[in-house]
């Protein structure tokens, strides 16, 4: 496409259309696709030409104006209505714009070249393709279909009306009202002004301008002409010449169509008017830190206490073995508070969106907070209820304990032997006694060392187990929040803002 801005607009419209599809009608969707196709096709059939159509009611004088502008007497003019049944095309230039005329659907026998040796050299109208269209309001309804099609394709439309029909609802409601952005490529002509006095002409013109302004078409160009006496024909031809010279009409027309569709998308999806953007809204610094609410310090402490009790039990001296550790006391998970925090987060992040989009996202995510809280609750219960497992190193501790006890037993044994042998063999008794003493010392020292080891093991086990479990649970909570809430919300906001930005571009 030769106009980069237009290509961007068309692409932006397509992007917006895709993003806003759930909130907009199928009609506007197919219109968006159609304008994209049309932009491609128009570029491919040749942007050197400017296609201008003379459109309007039966009897308003399109064909007469066509003849006046072309200087030829080609278009049929008559009293019986309607007159023109097929579009007639006159083209200025060297080479016949065949592809363009094919694309427009002009029958081969209705294509007339406008060049002759009698013309001014380098006729400034070179590149103009002028169409005389059938009417849009007669009882021959097939004419209206042809008009609808061609008015949708051409680069520029000259709407021809007259003192009788200029106020007709059909012209305004069916055609002009949808061309509010097309100021540069639409001209409204009040023809047959030769039937009016100058004062009457002013009345009609100013009333017509009022009607147009009232419909938001105040920017449209309005000319007074008379094909019969030539009034205004030169001025109209000059406008056409300017449009042809600028070579922008095609792009302008398409840009206006894109803008109109952008507006429709905006209205249907209930987005803010252009320029009012959505980027000024404060964003959360991040999702709420609910991990600490789900896996509380209280739980941490309960876990630590439980594990300490377990370790104490596992590592106790045999005579101190009590029963199994009592289960962890679960503090209550304040699920309502957590769910509420998460709901608030969703609400805040979506607050600034267009209503339909916001409601849709909130709907999609509505069950997520409570589902997550339920899942977390289940996992906490499961983890907390899982039996504690002893560490492998504890077998070493128990061996040490046994060794100590063995030493104590040896000490006692030797002591008994010493006592018994004292009466008979003092030496043996002394040896046994010394042995007993050594064993006793070994036992006491060993016992003290083992005890210290026991205590350290117990504390270490309790704190590291508890910390590990708590950290793993909290990590899960944070990940879940990120995956199921934060990322979807971010994606939604990005899409939403992208749609708004695309619309701004399309309507610029």
């Amino acid at each position, binding site marked *: 496409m030769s106009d980069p801005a237009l290509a961007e607009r068309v692409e932006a419209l397509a992007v917006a259309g895709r993003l806003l599809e759930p909130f907009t009608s199928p009609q506007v969707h197919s219109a968006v696709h159609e304008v994209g196709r049309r932009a491609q096709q128009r570029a491919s059939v040749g942007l050197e030409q400017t296609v201008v159509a003379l459109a309007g009611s039966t*009897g308003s004088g399109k064909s007469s104006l066509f003849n006046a502008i072309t200087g030829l007497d080609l278009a049929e003019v008559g009293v019986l209505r309607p007159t023109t049944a097929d579009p007639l095309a006159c083209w200025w230039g060297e080479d016949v714009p065949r592809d363009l005329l094919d694309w427009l659907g002009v029958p081969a026998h209705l294509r007339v070249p406008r060049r002759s040796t009698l013309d001014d050299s380098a006729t400034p109208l070179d590149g103009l393709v002028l169409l005389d269209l059938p009417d849009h309001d007669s*009882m021959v309804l097939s004419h209206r279909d042809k008009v609808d099609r061609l008015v949708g394709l051409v680069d520029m439309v000259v709407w021809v009306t007259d003192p009788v029909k200029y*106020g007709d609802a059909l012209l305004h409601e069916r055609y002009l009202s949808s061309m509010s952005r097309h100021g540069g490529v639409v001209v409204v002509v009040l023809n047959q002004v030769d039937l009016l006095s100058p004062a009457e002409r002013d*009345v009609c013109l100013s009333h017509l301008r009022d009607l147009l302004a009232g419909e938001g078409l105040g920017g449209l160009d309005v000319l007074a002409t008379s094909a019969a006496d030539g009034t205004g024909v030169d001025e109209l031809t000059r406008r056409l010449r300017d449009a042809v010279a600028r070579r922008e009409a095609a792009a302008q027309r398409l840009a206006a169509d894109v803008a109109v569709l952008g507006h429709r998308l905006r209205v249907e999806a209930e987005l803010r008017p252009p320029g009012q953007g959505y980027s000024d809204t404060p964003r959360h610094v991040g999702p709420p830190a609910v991990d600490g609410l789900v896996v509380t310090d209280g739980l941490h402490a309960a876990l630590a206490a439980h594990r300490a009790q377990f370790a104490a039990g596992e590592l106790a001296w045999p005579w101190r073995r009590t029963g199994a550790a009592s289960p962890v006391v679960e503090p209550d998970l304040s699920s309502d508070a957590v769910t509420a925090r998460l709901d608030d987060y969703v609400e805040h992040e979506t607050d600034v969106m267009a209503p339909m989009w916001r409601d849709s996202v909130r709907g999609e995510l509505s069950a997520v907070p409570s589902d997550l809280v339920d899942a977390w609750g289940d996992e906490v219960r499961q983890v907390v209820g899982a039996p504690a497992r002893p560490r492998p190193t504890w077998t070493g501790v128990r061996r040490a304990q046994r060794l100590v006890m063995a030493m104590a037993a040896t000490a006692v044994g030797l002591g008994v032997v010493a006592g018994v042998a004292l009466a008979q063999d003092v030496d043996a008794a002394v040896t046994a006694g010394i042995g007993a003493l050594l064993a006793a010392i070994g036992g006491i020292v060993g016992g003290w060392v083992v005890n210290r080891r026991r205590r350290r093991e117990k504390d270490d086990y309790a704190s590291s187990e508890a910390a590990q479990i708590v950290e793993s649970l909290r990590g899960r909570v944070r990940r879940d929040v990120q995956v199921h809430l934060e990322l979807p919300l971010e994606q939604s906001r990005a899409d939403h803002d992208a749609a708004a930005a695309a619309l701004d571009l399309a309507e610029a």
Partner: protein
Amino acid sequence: MAPLRTGPTMSGMTKGSRFVPDARTHLGESAASLAAALGGRDGACQTDETARRLVDELDLIEARSRHPDVPLLIVLAGSTGVGTSTLLNSLVGRRVSPTGVRRPTTTAPVLVHRPRDDPARLVTLVGGPADVVADEAVPEGIAVVDSPGMDSVVQHPRSRSASLIAAADAWVAVTSPARYADAAGWSHLAGDAARHVPTAIVLNRTVEHARADVTEHLAALLSRRGLAECPFLVVDDNPGAEGMLPPAAVDRLRSLLSTLGQDPSLRALARRSSLAAAADAAVRRAQAWVSSQPEEDARRDDVRRAAEGLRAIVARELS
């Protein structure tokens, strides 16, 4: 009374319906019963806007059926810009309806009646704001109303013209060489309101060089749509005095209207058709009213029965 020089006889105006003398009063009585079922003038319907208006209209139908001497209401109506105001002015002989180039020109109906006739009932028929003028020049037995133009972008005039045609005893459908092939005009001729109203066609503002061709073409179009029996008049264009035609130009139209106003059987035919059309519309609105009322409303069954009775009479009339 001489028949028109060309074209069909006056009975063509009412599209071939037969004259049955008693049906009129039966219709009137039936309309009165329906009005009573709705609660009558002083009944509970005082607070119900729809019912009240319906009762007013039914009373009017009943009154018109009992008083054949109420002037026939003739509506001049057509697309904006065909010259209905000029026609009215020319019939009366003075400018009673403003003309001009601003479209639409007529925004409020202009009702012209003979001074001797009481305009009150006619104004009720017109149903809304209207300029009311008395003038001796109005042919006897009728009153003429110039309707706002149809199909212009200014909304209010469009719906007034449709309701005027529905309320009229006869419709003079005006067109012009510029407008005669417009789809909108033909769809009005085929529309509900227009179908039962006695109709005449006037091709106004006819320029000399177009006269023969356009007249022939329009006649063919009318014939194709089953309107060949309607009186079809051509009025020449006169670009001179704005808003007024020379009396001769509207001679035939005036004589058509006079005949309609004075011939008893024609009056009866016209009145009968238009009363049937008005009653038909009233029946439909009564049925819609019934379905919109809550189950417990005691009037529902009575109204339904009375509406059914009226509908049967109307069906006979219109067949």
